[in-house]
């Protein structure tokens, strides 16, 4: 099965961006991950390729993180036009900022990038059950923080 390169690039970029908080650093990490993958001679496609790309990107982000402290959650995101949605997004972003980086990573991968639990389990070196349980716990925590912020 061939891979949608653009989709893979977007997912990895989003992942790296939320780990590093910098557009340039995230793009550098994504491109380095792709370059390393292609140099390995493996065919692009399937979950194995995506797992490899995430693993390389994650390691590159960790190296970059050690070099410099990233912003916890970037602020230069496009805001929705609707006022209610804007307020909801602000509350959600505040709640996300209260989560641990690992919890944010789980939510991003599962609900934003829509990666299967099996891929996340392989990437994080945990059982699928553990990943599922931790993702659910992070989601409950996020909802609880949002409720706390409600007037």
């Amino acid at each position, binding site marked *: *099965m*061939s*891979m949608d*390169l*653009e989709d893979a*690039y*977007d997912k990895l*970029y*989003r992942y790296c*961006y*939320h780990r590093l908080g910098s*557009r*340039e650093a*995230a*793009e550098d990490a*994504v*491109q380095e991950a*792709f370059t390393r993958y*292609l140099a390995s*001679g493996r*065919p*692009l*496609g*399937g979950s194995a390729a995506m797992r490899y790309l995430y693993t390389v990107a994650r390691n590159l982000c960790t190296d970059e993180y050690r070099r410099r402290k990233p912003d916890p959650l*970037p602020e*230069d*995101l*496009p805001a*929705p036009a609707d006022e209610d*949605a804007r307020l*909801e*997004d602000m509350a*959600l*972003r505040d709640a*996300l900022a209260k989560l641990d980086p690992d919890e*944010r990573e789980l*939510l*991003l991968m599962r*609900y*934003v990038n829509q990666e299967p639990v099996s891929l996340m389990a392989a990437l994080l070196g945990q059982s699928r059950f553990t990943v599922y349980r931790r993702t659910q716990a992070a*989601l409950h925590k996020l909802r609880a923080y949002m409720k706390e912020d409600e007037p």
Partner: protein
Amino acid sequence: MKKSERSALCRAMEAPPPLKKRAFLRGLPAPRPSLISVILSQAGYIRKTTWVLSGALFALALAAALTLPADGLWAASALTPFAALLAVTELSRSRLHGMEELELSTRLGLRAVALARMGLIGLVHLALLVILAAALPETARAGVYLLTPYLLTDGLGLWAARHVRGREAVYVCGGAAVLVAGLGVAANAMEAYAAANFRWWLLAMVLAMALAAAEYHTTIQKSEELSWNF
């Protein structure tokens, strides 16, 4: 998770648009497809008639084997060359139609296409031969009787497809299949299927296997040479 909740999360976690994506993706070499995807893509290009006729031939051979206890073995054995004929004509289709240069210019190339088709048809035919042999008494012996004419026709057919151009190659391959099937009928008349002659069948199978392997190898090598000349 609710749909609205998910879209809010997506909005909150969206990253600003990347700046260098287009340029980077344009510069990437075309992805090399995996072996499985090559094989699966080629499965769609094998003519349906090849599969239908293969199935019909093996069904006929199976029916003969089950309904004719005395003559089932040689009858089934005489039908397998026609299955090999189907494999050879499918494998050499681009050559038979004078389209090999066009296939060489494709992303996969003639060699990969030929290997994928050969692997697919070979595997399906092997599975059908195993089923057929299992339905016959003395499965191992029956396997040799079935495999020998198949491999012999494969070898002769591939040789013909390499040496004869165009439509005539199909007739020569068909002639080879009829010749081998006729040899099977003659072998039955001469009681060659008797248990005492089995060692000669084993020898014939080894020779047919060597011929088929050599012809497959040469066919693939020739497609490599063609790609150098292209």
